[in-house]
Protein backbone atom coordinates (compact mmCIF):
# COMPACT_ATOMS: atom_id res chain seq x y z
CA UNK A 1 0.00 0.00 0.00
CA UNK A 2 2.70 2.42 1.07
CA UNK A 3 4.83 1.47 -1.89
CA UNK A 4 1.92 2.08 -4.28
CA UNK A 5 1.50 5.53 -2.85
CA UNK A 6 5.22 6.15 -3.09
CA UNK A 7 5.34 5.11 -6.74
CA UNK A 8 2.27 7.19 -7.62
CA UNK A 9 3.76 10.22 -5.90
CA UNK A 10 7.01 9.67 -7.75
CA UNK A 11 5.31 9.42 -11.14
CA UNK A 12 3.15 12.47 -10.44
CA UNK A 13 6.16 14.47 -9.27
CA UNK A 14 7.70 13.92 -12.71
CA UNK A 15 4.57 15.30 -14.35
CA UNK A 16 3.16 11.99 -15.56
CA UNK A 17 -0.14 10.31 -14.83
CA UNK A 18 0.00 7.07 -12.89
CA UNK A 19 -2.56 4.34 -13.43
CA UNK A 20 -2.69 2.00 -10.47
CA UNK A 21 -3.30 -1.70 -10.73
CA UNK A 22 -3.36 -3.59 -7.45
CA UNK A 23 -2.32 -6.95 -8.85
CA UNK A 24 -1.18 -8.67 -12.03
CA UNK A 25 -4.66 -9.44 -13.31
CA UNK A 26 -5.75 -5.80 -12.90
CA UNK A 27 -2.50 -4.74 -14.54
CA UNK A 28 -3.14 -6.79 -17.69
CA UNK A 29 -6.72 -5.51 -17.67
CA UNK A 30 -5.55 -1.88 -17.56
CA UNK A 31 -3.15 -2.51 -20.46
CA UNK A 32 -5.92 -3.95 -22.61
CA UNK A 33 -7.97 -0.77 -22.14
CA UNK A 34 -5.51 2.12 -22.41
CA UNK A 35 -2.03 2.46 -23.82
CA UNK A 36 0.75 3.32 -21.37
CA UNK A 37 4.26 4.71 -21.86
CA UNK A 38 5.89 2.86 -19.00
CA UNK A 39 5.15 -0.15 -16.82
CA UNK A 40 6.50 -0.29 -13.28
CA UNK A 41 6.10 -3.86 -12.09
CA UNK A 42 6.40 -5.12 -8.55
CA UNK A 43 7.49 -8.76 -8.65
CA UNK A 44 6.00 -9.64 -5.30
CA UNK A 45 2.25 -9.28 -5.50
CA UNK A 46 -0.73 -11.17 -4.19
CA UNK A 47 -2.88 -13.17 -6.64
CA UNK A 48 -0.96 -13.37 -9.87
CA UNK A 49 2.78 -13.17 -9.09
CA UNK A 50 4.80 -10.43 -10.73
CA UNK A 51 7.13 -12.99 -12.28
CA UNK A 52 4.31 -14.51 -14.31
CA UNK A 53 3.03 -11.07 -15.28
CA UNK A 54 6.54 -10.22 -16.49
CA UNK A 55 6.52 -13.37 -18.62
CA UNK A 56 3.12 -12.55 -20.14
CA UNK A 57 4.13 -8.97 -20.89
CA UNK A 58 7.30 -10.11 -22.63
CA UNK A 59 5.64 -12.74 -24.83
CA UNK A 60 2.73 -10.49 -25.79
CA UNK A 61 3.45 -8.77 -29.12
CA UNK A 62 1.57 -5.60 -28.18
CA UNK A 63 3.24 -5.19 -24.78
CA UNK A 64 6.75 -6.52 -25.13
CA UNK A 65 8.24 -3.24 -26.35
CA UNK A 66 6.66 -1.01 -23.71
CA UNK A 67 9.46 0.23 -21.43
CA UNK A 68 9.32 -1.73 -18.18
CA UNK A 69 10.95 -1.22 -14.79
CA UNK A 70 10.99 -4.16 -12.42
CA UNK A 71 10.55 -2.72 -8.94
CA UNK A 72 11.38 -5.39 -6.44
CA UNK A 73 12.13 -6.36 -2.90
CA UNK A 74 14.39 -9.17 -4.09
CA UNK A 75 17.77 -8.58 -5.64
CA UNK A 76 18.38 -8.64 -9.35
CA UNK A 77 20.32 -11.94 -9.39
CA UNK A 78 17.30 -13.74 -7.92
CA UNK A 79 15.06 -12.33 -10.63
CA UNK A 80 17.58 -13.07 -13.39
CA UNK A 81 17.69 -16.64 -12.16
CA UNK A 82 13.90 -16.76 -12.31
CA UNK A 83 13.94 -15.59 -15.92
CA UNK A 84 16.55 -18.22 -16.79
CA UNK A 85 14.33 -20.88 -15.27
CA UNK A 86 11.42 -19.66 -17.41
CA UNK A 87 13.64 -19.90 -20.49
CA UNK A 88 14.32 -23.59 -19.91
CA UNK A 89 11.05 -23.91 -21.83
CA UNK A 90 12.43 -24.16 -25.43
CA UNK A 91 9.51 -22.14 -26.80
CA UNK A 92 10.36 -19.16 -24.64
CA UNK A 93 13.05 -16.56 -25.01
CA UNK A 94 12.25 -14.01 -22.38
CA UNK A 95 14.76 -11.15 -22.11
CA UNK A 96 16.19 -10.11 -18.78
CA UNK A 97 14.71 -6.87 -17.51
CA UNK A 98 16.47 -3.82 -18.90
CA UNK A 99 15.60 -1.70 -15.87
CA UNK A 100 15.68 -3.18 -12.43
CA UNK A 101 15.25 -1.09 -9.28
CA UNK A 102 15.24 -2.53 -5.79
CA UNK A 103 12.69 -1.17 -3.37
CA UNK A 104 15.43 0.01 -1.07
CA UNK A 105 17.06 2.07 -3.83
CA UNK A 106 17.38 5.81 -3.53
CA UNK A 107 14.31 7.73 -4.74
CA UNK A 108 16.68 9.83 -6.89
CA UNK A 109 17.85 6.70 -8.67
CA UNK A 110 14.30 5.53 -9.34
CA UNK A 111 13.49 9.00 -10.66
CA UNK A 112 16.48 8.83 -13.01
CA UNK A 113 15.45 5.42 -14.35
CA UNK A 114 11.88 6.58 -14.98
CA UNK A 115 13.14 9.64 -16.84
CA UNK A 116 15.42 7.44 -18.96
CA UNK A 117 12.49 5.20 -19.85
CA UNK A 118 9.98 7.84 -20.90
CA UNK A 119 12.24 10.27 -22.72
Amino acid at each position, binding site marked *: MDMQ*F*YLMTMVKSLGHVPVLARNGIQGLDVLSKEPVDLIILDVMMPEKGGGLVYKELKIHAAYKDIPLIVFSGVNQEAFTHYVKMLNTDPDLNIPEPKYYVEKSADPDYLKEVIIRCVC
Partner: protein
Amino acid sequence: MNQDTHTYTILLVDDEPGIRSVLNITLTHAGFTVWPASSGDAGLQLFFEKYPDIVITDIKMPGIDGIELLKKIKDAAPETEVIMITGHGDMDLAVKSLQHEAADFITKPIDAAEIEIAVKKAVDRISINKNIRSYMVDLEHMIKEKDRAIDESKTLSTIGQTIAGMSHVIKNIAGGLKGSSFILEQGIENENREYMVKGWEMMKKNIDKITNLSLDLLNYAKTSRLDLVPTHPDQPVKEIKPLLDTQAKQRGIDLKVSFLGKEDVQVMMDPGAIHTCVFNLTTNALDAFDTTNAPEHPGQVHVFVQQKDQTIVYQVQDNGMGMNKTIQQAIFTDFITTKGTRGTGFGLMTTKKIVEEHKGKIGFTTREGKGSKFWIQLPLS
Protein backbone atom coordinates in the same frame (compact mmCIF):
# COMPACT_ATOMS: atom_id res chain seq x y z
CA MET B 1 60.87 -56.44 18.13
CA ASN B 2 60.00 -53.54 20.33
CA GLN B 3 62.66 -52.97 22.96
CA ASP B 4 61.19 -50.68 25.54
CA THR B 5 62.63 -50.12 28.95
CA HIS B 6 59.56 -51.36 30.74
CA THR B 7 60.16 -54.52 32.79
CA TYR B 8 57.48 -57.03 31.91
CA THR B 9 55.98 -59.17 34.64
CA ILE B 10 55.17 -62.84 34.39
CA LEU B 11 52.94 -65.02 36.52
CA LEU B 12 54.17 -68.58 36.32
CA VAL B 13 51.72 -71.31 37.36
CA ASP B 14 52.82 -74.93 37.47
CA ASP B 15 52.37 -77.66 40.04
CA GLU B 16 55.73 -79.26 39.21
CA PRO B 17 58.46 -77.55 41.28
CA GLY B 18 61.17 -78.54 38.75
CA ILE B 19 59.52 -76.78 35.80
CA ARG B 20 58.69 -73.76 37.98
CA SER B 21 62.26 -73.36 39.07
CA VAL B 22 63.78 -73.80 35.58
CA LEU B 23 61.37 -71.32 34.01
CA ASN B 24 61.80 -68.86 36.87
CA ILE B 25 65.58 -68.85 36.42
CA THR B 26 65.41 -68.61 32.60
CA LEU B 27 62.89 -65.78 32.55
CA THR B 28 64.42 -63.81 35.39
CA HIS B 29 67.71 -64.09 33.58
CA ALA B 30 66.01 -62.77 30.43
CA GLY B 31 65.05 -59.63 32.36
CA PHE B 32 61.50 -60.36 33.50
CA THR B 33 59.97 -60.10 36.93
CA VAL B 34 58.57 -63.53 37.67
CA TRP B 35 55.96 -64.50 40.24
CA PRO B 36 55.70 -68.28 40.64
CA ALA B 37 52.57 -70.07 41.87
CA SER B 38 52.19 -73.78 42.59
CA SER B 39 48.51 -74.25 41.73
CA GLY B 40 45.65 -72.79 39.74
CA ASP B 41 44.05 -71.38 42.88
CA ALA B 42 47.27 -69.81 44.10
CA GLY B 43 47.90 -68.51 40.57
CA LEU B 44 44.48 -66.88 40.37
CA GLN B 45 44.93 -65.22 43.72
CA LEU B 46 48.36 -63.93 42.75
CA PHE B 47 47.00 -62.74 39.42
CA PHE B 48 44.49 -60.46 41.12
CA GLU B 49 47.18 -59.12 43.43
CA LYS B 50 49.79 -58.40 40.78
CA TYR B 51 48.02 -58.09 37.42
CA PRO B 52 51.01 -59.40 35.45
CA ASP B 53 51.50 -58.65 31.74
CA ILE B 54 52.00 -62.30 30.88
CA VAL B 55 50.79 -65.56 32.41
CA ILE B 56 52.44 -68.90 31.74
CA THR B 57 50.36 -71.77 33.02
CA ASP B 58 50.34 -75.52 32.90
CA ILE B 59 47.05 -76.93 31.66
CA LYS B 60 46.76 -80.02 33.80
CA MET B 61 46.72 -79.12 37.46
CA PRO B 62 44.67 -80.21 40.47
CA GLY B 63 42.00 -77.70 41.59
CA ILE B 64 41.55 -74.93 39.05
CA ASP B 65 43.15 -76.25 35.87
CA GLY B 66 44.93 -74.17 33.23
CA ILE B 67 41.88 -73.75 30.95
CA GLU B 68 39.74 -72.56 33.85
CA LEU B 69 42.45 -70.17 34.94
CA LEU B 70 42.78 -68.89 31.36
CA LYS B 71 39.02 -68.19 31.13
CA LYS B 72 38.96 -66.32 34.43
CA ILE B 73 41.98 -64.22 33.54
CA LYS B 74 40.64 -63.37 30.06
CA ASP B 75 37.31 -62.40 31.64
CA ALA B 76 38.97 -60.09 34.13
CA ALA B 77 41.79 -58.68 32.03
CA PRO B 78 41.48 -59.59 28.34
CA GLU B 79 44.70 -57.78 27.41
CA THR B 80 46.78 -60.31 29.42
CA GLU B 81 48.92 -62.61 27.28
CA VAL B 82 48.46 -66.18 28.44
CA ILE B 83 50.85 -68.90 27.30
CA MET B 84 49.83 -72.49 27.95
CA ILE B 85 52.11 -75.38 28.80
CA THR B 86 50.77 -78.66 27.47
CA GLY B 87 51.88 -82.22 27.89
CA HIS B 88 52.89 -84.24 24.88
CA GLY B 89 49.76 -85.32 22.96
CA ASP B 90 47.42 -82.82 24.66
CA MET B 91 46.55 -81.30 21.30
CA ASP B 92 42.84 -81.14 22.12
CA LEU B 93 43.53 -79.07 25.21
CA ALA B 94 45.95 -76.86 23.30
CA VAL B 95 43.32 -76.15 20.65
CA LYS B 96 40.69 -75.54 23.31
CA SER B 97 42.94 -73.04 25.05
CA LEU B 98 43.54 -71.19 21.78
CA GLN B 99 39.77 -70.97 21.37
CA HIS B 100 39.71 -69.27 24.75
CA GLU B 101 42.20 -66.73 23.48
CA ALA B 102 45.43 -68.15 24.81
CA ALA B 103 48.31 -66.35 23.10
CA ASP B 104 50.41 -69.42 22.45
CA PHE B 105 51.23 -72.85 23.77
CA ILE B 106 54.45 -74.70 24.34
CA THR B 107 54.83 -78.40 24.84
CA LYS B 108 56.75 -80.34 27.45
CA PRO B 109 59.58 -81.10 27.73
CA ILE B 110 60.25 -77.40 27.90
CA ASP B 111 63.02 -75.95 25.86
CA ALA B 112 64.44 -72.66 27.16
CA ALA B 113 64.76 -71.13 23.67
CA GLU B 114 61.17 -72.03 22.85
CA ILE B 115 59.80 -70.38 25.95
CA GLU B 116 61.87 -67.25 25.37
CA ILE B 117 60.52 -66.95 21.84
CA ALA B 118 56.93 -67.41 23.04
CA VAL B 119 57.41 -64.76 25.73
CA LYS B 120 59.09 -62.35 23.35
CA LYS B 121 56.20 -62.71 20.94
CA ALA B 122 53.84 -61.98 23.81
CA VAL B 123 55.86 -58.87 24.69
CA ASP B 124 55.65 -57.71 21.08
CA ARG B 125 51.92 -58.14 21.04
CA ILE B 126 51.57 -56.23 24.30
CA SER B 127 53.55 -53.29 22.99
CA ILE B 128 51.70 -53.32 19.66
CA ASN B 129 48.38 -53.35 21.50
CA LYS B 130 49.58 -50.54 23.68
CA ASN B 131 50.46 -48.52 20.58
CA ILE B 132 47.12 -49.29 18.99
CA ARG B 133 45.36 -48.18 22.13
CA SER B 134 47.27 -44.93 22.22
CA TYR B 135 46.54 -44.35 18.51
CA MET B 136 42.87 -44.96 19.24
CA VAL B 137 42.95 -42.43 22.04
CA ASP B 138 44.70 -39.95 19.74
CA LEU B 139 42.12 -40.62 17.04
CA GLU B 140 39.29 -40.05 19.47
CA HIS B 141 40.92 -36.79 20.50
CA MET B 142 41.26 -35.78 16.88
CA ILE B 143 37.64 -36.65 16.17
CA LYS B 144 36.51 -34.62 19.16
CA GLU B 145 38.64 -31.69 18.00
CA LYS B 146 37.15 -31.89 14.51
CA ASP B 147 33.63 -32.16 15.92
CA ARG B 148 34.28 -29.02 17.92
CA ALA B 149 35.56 -27.26 14.83
CA ILE B 150 32.48 -28.35 12.87
CA ASP B 151 30.19 -27.11 15.65
CA GLU B 152 31.98 -23.80 15.64
CA SER B 153 31.69 -23.41 11.90
CA LYS B 154 28.00 -24.27 12.13
CA THR B 155 27.57 -21.53 14.69
CA LEU B 156 29.47 -19.17 12.42
CA SER B 157 27.30 -20.03 9.46
CA THR B 158 24.19 -19.48 11.59
CA ILE B 159 25.59 -16.10 12.54
CA GLY B 160 26.24 -15.47 8.86
CA GLN B 161 22.65 -16.29 8.00
CA THR B 162 21.44 -14.16 10.87
CA ILE B 163 23.44 -11.22 9.60
CA ALA B 164 22.27 -11.78 6.02
CA GLY B 165 18.68 -11.91 7.22
CA MET B 166 19.15 -8.81 9.32
CA SER B 167 20.67 -6.91 6.45
CA HIS B 168 17.64 -7.81 4.33
CA VAL B 169 15.26 -6.55 7.04
CA ILE B 170 17.24 -3.36 7.53
CA LYS B 171 17.40 -2.79 3.78
CA ASN B 172 13.62 -3.03 3.60
CA ILE B 173 13.23 -0.54 6.42
CA ALA B 174 15.71 1.76 4.73
CA GLY B 175 13.69 1.47 1.53
CA GLY B 176 10.54 2.40 3.40
CA LEU B 177 12.23 5.36 5.05
CA LYS B 178 13.58 6.64 1.74
CA GLY B 179 10.17 6.29 0.14
CA SER B 180 8.43 8.10 2.98
CA SER B 181 10.96 10.91 3.04
CA PHE B 182 10.48 11.35 -0.72
CA ILE B 183 6.71 11.64 -0.24
CA LEU B 184 7.22 14.06 2.67
CA GLU B 185 9.54 16.20 0.54
CA GLN B 186 6.99 16.26 -2.26
CA GLY B 187 4.36 17.29 0.26
CA ILE B 188 6.49 20.13 1.58
CA GLU B 189 7.58 21.31 -1.87
CA ASN B 190 4.08 21.39 -3.26
CA GLU B 191 2.37 22.25 -0.01
CA ASN B 192 0.34 19.12 -0.49
CA ARG B 193 -1.20 18.11 2.82
CA GLU B 194 -2.15 14.61 1.66
CA TYR B 195 1.47 13.84 0.80
CA MET B 196 2.68 15.21 4.09
CA VAL B 197 0.22 13.13 6.12
CA LYS B 198 0.82 10.01 4.07
CA GLY B 199 4.59 10.40 4.13
CA TRP B 200 4.57 10.97 7.85
CA GLU B 201 2.37 7.91 8.47
CA MET B 202 4.66 5.80 6.38
CA MET B 203 7.68 7.08 8.23
CA LYS B 204 6.08 6.31 11.59
CA LYS B 205 5.41 2.73 10.48
CA ASN B 206 9.04 2.31 9.56
CA ILE B 207 10.14 3.77 12.87
CA ASP B 208 7.90 1.23 14.63
CA LYS B 209 9.43 -1.45 12.51
CA ILE B 210 12.98 -0.57 13.39
CA THR B 211 11.97 -0.42 17.06
CA ASN B 212 10.46 -3.90 16.76
CA LEU B 213 13.58 -5.15 15.03
CA SER B 214 15.79 -3.94 17.84
CA LEU B 215 13.48 -5.64 20.37
CA ASP B 216 13.53 -8.84 18.35
CA LEU B 217 17.31 -8.76 18.19
CA LEU B 218 17.47 -8.23 21.92
CA ASN B 219 15.14 -11.18 22.53
CA TYR B 220 17.19 -13.32 20.18
CA ALA B 221 20.39 -12.46 22.02
CA LYS B 222 18.73 -13.16 25.38
CA THR B 223 17.99 -16.76 24.42
CA SER B 224 21.57 -17.69 25.15
CA ARG B 225 21.27 -16.79 28.82
CA LEU B 226 18.04 -18.26 30.04
CA ASP B 227 17.29 -18.42 33.74
CA LEU B 228 15.49 -21.73 34.38
CA VAL B 229 13.38 -21.86 37.55
CA PRO B 230 10.53 -24.16 38.63
CA THR B 231 7.41 -22.40 37.34
CA HIS B 232 3.73 -23.20 37.15
CA PRO B 233 2.90 -23.68 33.44
CA ASP B 234 0.02 -21.17 33.57
CA GLN B 235 2.24 -18.31 34.69
CA PRO B 236 3.82 -17.32 31.36
CA VAL B 237 0.42 -17.10 29.61
CA LYS B 238 -1.40 -15.10 32.30
CA GLU B 239 -0.52 -11.79 30.67
CA ILE B 240 -1.35 -12.87 27.11
CA LYS B 241 -5.05 -11.92 27.12
CA PRO B 242 -4.67 -8.58 28.97
CA LEU B 243 -1.84 -7.61 26.60
CA LEU B 244 -3.42 -8.63 23.32
CA ASP B 245 -7.16 -8.38 23.87
CA THR B 246 -7.49 -4.78 22.66
CA GLN B 247 -5.59 -5.59 19.49
CA ALA B 248 -7.74 -8.71 18.97
CA LYS B 249 -11.01 -6.81 19.50
CA GLN B 250 -9.96 -4.07 17.05
CA ARG B 251 -9.67 -6.73 14.41
CA GLY B 252 -12.89 -8.44 15.42
CA ILE B 253 -11.09 -11.54 16.68
CA ASP B 254 -12.20 -13.48 19.74
CA LEU B 255 -9.10 -14.29 21.83
CA LYS B 256 -9.51 -17.07 24.39
CA VAL B 257 -7.01 -18.52 26.87
CA SER B 258 -7.61 -21.88 28.60
CA PHE B 259 -5.35 -22.51 31.57
CA LEU B 260 -4.16 -25.85 32.93
CA GLY B 261 -5.72 -24.98 36.30
CA LYS B 262 -4.06 -27.82 38.23
CA GLU B 263 -2.08 -26.58 41.23
CA ASP B 264 0.87 -28.87 41.85
CA VAL B 265 2.60 -28.85 38.44
CA GLN B 266 5.97 -27.26 37.86
CA VAL B 267 8.20 -26.98 34.83
CA MET B 268 11.82 -25.86 34.73
CA MET B 269 11.64 -22.79 32.53
CA ASP B 270 12.52 -19.19 32.03
CA PRO B 271 8.97 -17.81 32.45
CA GLY B 272 9.83 -14.56 30.66
CA ALA B 273 11.26 -16.38 27.65
CA ILE B 274 8.30 -18.80 27.41
CA HIS B 275 6.00 -15.80 27.67
CA THR B 276 7.84 -14.30 24.68
CA CYS B 277 7.29 -17.56 22.75
CA VAL B 278 3.55 -17.84 23.43
CA PHE B 279 3.19 -14.11 22.86
CA ASN B 280 4.91 -14.44 19.46
CA LEU B 281 2.70 -17.36 18.45
CA THR B 282 -0.40 -15.48 19.57
CA THR B 283 0.45 -12.27 17.69
CA ASN B 284 1.19 -14.42 14.65
CA ALA B 285 -2.24 -16.01 15.03
CA LEU B 286 -3.87 -12.56 15.29
CA ASP B 287 -2.02 -11.58 12.11
CA ALA B 288 -3.28 -14.67 10.30
CA PHE B 289 -6.55 -13.00 9.36
CA ASP B 290 -7.07 -11.20 6.11
CA THR B 291 -8.25 -7.79 7.21
CA THR B 292 -8.72 -6.38 3.71
CA ASN B 293 -11.66 -8.66 2.98
CA ALA B 294 -14.67 -9.09 5.18
CA PRO B 295 -14.19 -12.38 7.04
CA GLU B 296 -16.51 -15.23 6.14
CA HIS B 297 -16.55 -16.46 9.71
CA PRO B 298 -15.79 -14.80 13.03
CA GLY B 299 -12.06 -14.86 13.78
CA GLN B 300 -10.99 -16.97 16.72
CA VAL B 301 -7.64 -17.43 18.42
CA HIS B 302 -7.48 -19.96 21.22
CA VAL B 303 -4.48 -20.42 23.52
CA PHE B 304 -4.41 -23.67 25.56
CA VAL B 305 -2.16 -24.91 28.33
CA GLN B 306 -2.41 -28.69 28.58
CA GLN B 307 -0.61 -31.60 30.16
CA LYS B 308 0.19 -34.50 27.85
CA ASP B 309 2.03 -37.45 29.41
CA GLN B 310 5.31 -36.11 30.72
CA THR B 311 5.07 -32.76 28.92
CA ILE B 312 3.32 -29.43 29.10
CA VAL B 313 1.87 -28.27 25.80
CA TYR B 314 1.16 -24.66 24.86
CA GLN B 315 -1.07 -24.57 21.84
CA VAL B 316 -2.16 -21.57 19.80
CA GLN B 317 -4.93 -22.25 17.34
CA ASP B 318 -6.51 -19.89 14.83
CA ASN B 319 -9.10 -20.15 12.07
CA GLY B 320 -7.27 -17.69 9.84
CA MET B 321 -5.60 -17.98 6.45
CA GLY B 322 -3.27 -20.91 7.08
CA MET B 323 0.06 -21.16 5.26
CA ASN B 324 1.13 -22.45 1.88
CA LYS B 325 3.92 -25.00 1.34
CA THR B 326 6.68 -22.48 0.64
CA ILE B 327 5.98 -20.55 3.81
CA GLN B 328 5.68 -23.75 5.85
CA GLN B 329 9.14 -24.87 4.82
CA ALA B 330 10.85 -21.61 5.63
CA ILE B 331 9.19 -20.31 8.77
CA PHE B 332 11.63 -21.61 11.35
CA THR B 333 14.83 -21.05 9.47
CA ASP B 334 14.54 -17.94 7.34
CA PHE B 335 13.66 -14.42 8.16
CA ILE B 336 10.53 -14.62 6.18
CA THR B 337 7.58 -12.52 7.01
CA THR B 338 4.10 -12.57 5.62
CA LYS B 339 3.18 -9.40 7.43
CA GLY B 340 4.22 -6.93 4.80
CA THR B 341 5.93 -3.93 6.29
CA ARG B 342 5.20 -4.88 9.89
CA GLY B 343 7.09 -8.15 10.34
CA THR B 344 10.79 -8.68 10.72
CA GLY B 345 10.89 -12.47 10.46
CA PHE B 346 12.71 -12.80 13.76
CA GLY B 347 9.81 -13.89 15.95
CA LEU B 348 9.56 -17.57 15.08
CA MET B 349 13.31 -18.03 14.90
CA THR B 350 13.64 -16.61 18.39
CA THR B 351 10.74 -18.74 19.62
CA LYS B 352 12.28 -21.90 18.22
CA LYS B 353 15.65 -21.11 19.77
CA ILE B 354 14.09 -20.52 23.20
CA VAL B 355 12.09 -23.76 23.02
CA GLU B 356 15.17 -25.74 22.03
CA GLU B 357 17.17 -24.23 24.89
CA HIS B 358 14.44 -25.65 27.15
CA LYS B 359 14.92 -29.09 25.54
CA GLY B 360 11.40 -28.73 24.24
CA LYS B 361 9.79 -29.15 20.85
CA ILE B 362 7.91 -26.79 18.57
CA GLY B 363 5.71 -27.63 15.62
CA PHE B 364 2.61 -26.74 13.68
CA THR B 365 -0.17 -28.02 11.51
CA THR B 366 -1.86 -25.76 8.99
CA ARG B 367 -4.43 -25.79 6.21
CA GLU B 368 -4.56 -23.03 3.68
CA GLY B 369 -7.75 -21.08 4.15
CA LYS B 370 -8.71 -23.01 7.29
CA GLY B 371 -6.20 -21.93 9.92
CA SER B 372 -3.06 -22.98 11.75
CA LYS B 373 -2.20 -24.65 15.01
CA PHE B 374 1.21 -24.03 16.61
CA TRP B 375 2.37 -25.95 19.65
CA ILE B 376 5.26 -25.84 22.09
CA GLN B 377 6.02 -28.89 24.19
CA LEU B 378 8.16 -28.62 27.31
CA PRO B 379 9.35 -31.62 29.35
CA LEU B 380 7.93 -31.81 32.90
CA SER B 381 10.72 -31.72 35.46
